[in-house]
């Protein structure tokens, strides 16, 4: 191939500097674009080393919650000695000035990504050619197998995908069993029968014992009828994870205002009736208790995002942002039925199914727990329940215990003031079909395991 042809081929097929500039400029001008690029690209996807550095600097600012702007990038670059000539600052200014609209970001990211994959393919061809030149006739089968594996990785697998080889899977199994064996020994020797958790606390001892906690990658669905404790359950979980265990969580609420959420916390953390906190009817001592409660909230990892017009896309975007910036371990969506439909032609159950599928993928990709609250029908059933059940790892229903059952069920008489059940409808990692009696104090918005009468 003539030298001129080779240069032309490289410039046309190997990289696309304009696409790289557009992605970077969009990151400097829009948070949504920044989140999208941060989660889709790596600096290795950029052909220009300068662009790769700008991308890394932008991501570094974003992770530290500093809005990546031209000025911040200049300061950051200057501090680590990246921009050392006027030409470089002029180039950066060009990038910052020529930004694209948010909705086009996926298109330009794909262009950058495609070029990156082409370069990897080119590198594969070069390596294969080198191997071919030095090929020993006895190695043919081995070389072809290695080439096939590399090519398959290039065409079929994205960054997050992986195929476990038999040795890898065996090692993983060995490590998992060993970990559980050690935990069991600890349980017997150190914890004296109290089960150590495998994930985040649920806030209920009995549920912890059955599930061993909410595990990273889990999608949990909790259903309850209107006015029967969806938000109380969500905040009870938030208390166990973010206040008591000091883990970072994100709470998305589609119904309540900031003030309403703050007041609920006042009641939960002080143990004073919600209605009295709302009306301000408190004694001096009670006021001190409420303030002490808020001090605990201040130190917690609870991040709240009231959002009446929440869409499935927005949940993904905001979860990615908080994972990058706050390393959240859990996201609670209160509640999915209030989300706006992406397509108005969809039936309610179809929309719920789509949301739940998206949240399961999100939980796995971001390695966190996602809890979706859903509304039960008046008869206690759930629309599209079968499909939701397929997707989730843990399906729970919260419902009041009927008066007749309280009177007739001998088992319940062993508990102190049970009035609600958590029913485990599905549990991928353990027992299901279990009903856990609870005591739900509606006035104080506090839930707890119903105490056993000894």
């Amino acid at each position: 191939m003539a030298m001129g042809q080779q240069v032309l081929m490289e410039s046309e097929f190997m990289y696309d500097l304009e696409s790289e500039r557009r992605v970077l400029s969009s990151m400097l001008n829009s948070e949504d674009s920044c989140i999208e690029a941060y989660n889709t690209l790596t600096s290795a996807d950029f052909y220009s080393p300068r662009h790769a550095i700008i991308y890394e600097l932008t991501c570094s600012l974003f992770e530290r919650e500093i809005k990546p702007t031209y000025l911040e990038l200049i300061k950051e670059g200057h501090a680590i000695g990246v921009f050392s000539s006027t030409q470089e600052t002029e180039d950066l200014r060009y990038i910052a000035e020529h930004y694209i609209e948010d909705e086009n970001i996926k298109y330009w990211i794909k262009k950058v990504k495609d070029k990156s994959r082409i370069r990897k393919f080119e590198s594969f061809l070069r390596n294969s050619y080198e191997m071919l030149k030095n090929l020993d006739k006895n190695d043919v089968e081995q070389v072809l197998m290695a080439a096939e594996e590399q090519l398959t990785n290039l065409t079929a697998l994205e960054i997050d995908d992986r195929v476990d080889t038999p040795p890898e899977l065996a090692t993983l199994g060995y490590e998992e069993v060993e970990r559980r064996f050690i935990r069991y020994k600890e349980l017997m020797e150190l914890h004296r029968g109290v089960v150590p958790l495998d994930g985040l606390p649920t806030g209920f001892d009995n549920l912890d014992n059955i599930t061993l906690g909410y595990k990273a990658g889990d999608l949990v669905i909790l259903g309850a009828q209107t006015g029967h404790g969806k938000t109380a359950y969500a905040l009870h979980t938030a208390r166990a994870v973010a206040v008591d265990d000091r883990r970072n969580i994100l709470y998305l609420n589609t119904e309540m205002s900031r003030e309403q959420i703050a007041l609920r916390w006042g009641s939960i953390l002080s143990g004073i009736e919600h209605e009295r906190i709302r009306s301000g009817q408190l004694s001096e001592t009670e006021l001190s208790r409420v303030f002490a409660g808020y001090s605990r909230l201040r130190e917690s990892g609870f991040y709240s995002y009231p959002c009446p017009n929440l869409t499935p896309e927005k949940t993904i975007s905001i979860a990615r942002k908080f994972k990058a910036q706050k390393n959240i371990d859990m996201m609670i969506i209160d509640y999915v039925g209030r989300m706006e439909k992406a397509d108005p032609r969809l039936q309610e159950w179809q929309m719920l199914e789509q949301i739940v599928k998206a949240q399961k993928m999100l939980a796995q990709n971001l390695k966190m727990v996602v809890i979706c609250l859903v509304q039960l029908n008046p008869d206690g059933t759930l629309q599209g329940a079968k499909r939701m059940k397929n997707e989730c790892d843990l399906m729970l229903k919260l419902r009041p215990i009927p008066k007749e059952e309280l009177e007739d069920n001998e088992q319940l008489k062993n508990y102190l003031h049970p009035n609600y059940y958590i029913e485990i409808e599905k549990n991928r990692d353990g027992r299901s079909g279990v009903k856990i009696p609870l005591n739900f104090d509606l006035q104080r918005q506090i839930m707890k395991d119903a105490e056993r009468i000894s």
Partner: protein
Amino acid sequence: MAIARDNPLKKLRDDTITTIVNLHLLQKITDEEMHFLLDLLDLVITGEGTGNLIPVLRTWLLQYNGSESDSIIKASLLGLNFSDQDSITRTSTIIKELLSDQFRA
């Protein structure tokens, strides 16, 4: 594609940032001076509490003659903490006093 020139304020800010950084790269201003100017620009553009600082700086530039007071004023400005509103107010007052002393002298 949107271009920053559609937004004159953004264009002005980006041009000014580039000018300041290039002055430093060409060794016309020091590292400290560059950071002062970038921080000042940020404060002016965001419109967050410049207090009395801008009119005081204008007056200073009109009276500047390379005197000892001017050196003190410059040193005070370079040590200014732009994230501290009290520091901005204090520095503005000191500069104002120095300028009136200079004017009387």
